[in-house]
């Protein structure tokens, strides 16, 4: 009978300690896990390839020609030329004349 009582007390004590620890560990895991996810997300954001933002310099003091269709068209065309200038291949290495071994000889060197 005593044995059973001790067993019950022990069981209650043990389960409350064990349960409490488990809850505490779970809480720690959840909190730290969440923080870790946040850190990972932040890291991912940092690791993202940085694409330079398109330079759209706002004109704070626009002239009457800031929205002139001709000026805007010229601006567009110049941007297009600029893009093509950057892309242009001025080497054309694949079209260099072929290197050929043209020394065909069968003389036996003596």
């Amino acid at each position, binding site marked *: 009978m005593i044995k059973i009582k001790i067993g019950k007390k022990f069981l209650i004590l043990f389960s409350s300690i064990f349960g409490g620890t488990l809850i505490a560990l779970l809480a720690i895991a959840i909190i730290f896990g969440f923080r870790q996810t946040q850190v990972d997300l932040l890291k991912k954001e940092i690791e993202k390839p940085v694409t330079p933002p398109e330079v759209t310099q706002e004109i704070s003091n*626009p002239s*009457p020609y800031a929205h002139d269709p001709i*000026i805007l068209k010229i601006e567009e065309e110049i941007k297009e030329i600029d893009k093509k*200038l950057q892309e242009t291949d001025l080497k054309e290495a694949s079209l260099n004349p*072929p290197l050929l071994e043209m020394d065909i000889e069968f003389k036996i060197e003596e």
Partner: protein
Amino acid sequence: MKKLPVFILFLLLSVSFTYAQEFNFQKAHEDYLFNFNKYRQSYSEYLTAREAYLSYNTLTSKNNAQEKTLKLLQDENEVIRTYLTALRLKLAETTGISNYEENVIYLKLDKEVSWYLNQRDKLMVAINLEDLVALSKESKENYQATDVLSYQALGSVLAGKEINFRNRLNEQIILIKEKLGEIRQKGDKQTVKVERWLLETENLLIKSQEKEFEAQQKLAQLKTNDRYKNKTYNEAQYLFEQSHQYLKEATNQLQEIIREIKTND
């Protein structure tokens, strides 16, 4: 029934037209690269056969050497012709080259191709190894001229690109000048500064043209007996790059000019 031959003719014409349309620089270039790889394989086989012939000097090894030499020379001939065709099509798709210059180069390229076609026929009737060696010497000698023409044609392609960009930039300068005339008349914005900047931009275009002329002159001076033709070509290419740099600077300035026009005084 009478309509049948007409229909067949029409069909043939449309097929050939479609083929002609499809055969562009990209295809020609692929064709050239394919033949170049074939040539390299033939060269390796030729070296082995030559080595065997020089070592054993038997009739069989001589016969094999002759076969491999013929194959090598035929492939070499094909490489040169497909290369010249690719170059011709590159010129055709490059805007900026004057019609006169383009036609002159076309004539020269066609003449070269026809020389190699003739040489290919000669290879077919070569009787022995000595004939093949002699024909190979002829090709080697002629290739010196082909080399010069190739570098000059390439120079025209690069010059064409620069001319095209310069023309496009000049068109925009004309439009800006027209707009500035309008602004000046209205008097709602100062134009003096922008006009001065435009002059500076035009100077950059002139400098770009000068560099391009210099490059073209360098290539025009190439001779068949020049030993280092590629060195001259690299020097010309450097001048083209300088010309290109001026065009980039001019474009940046034009962007600044537009910004200035869009900003109030």
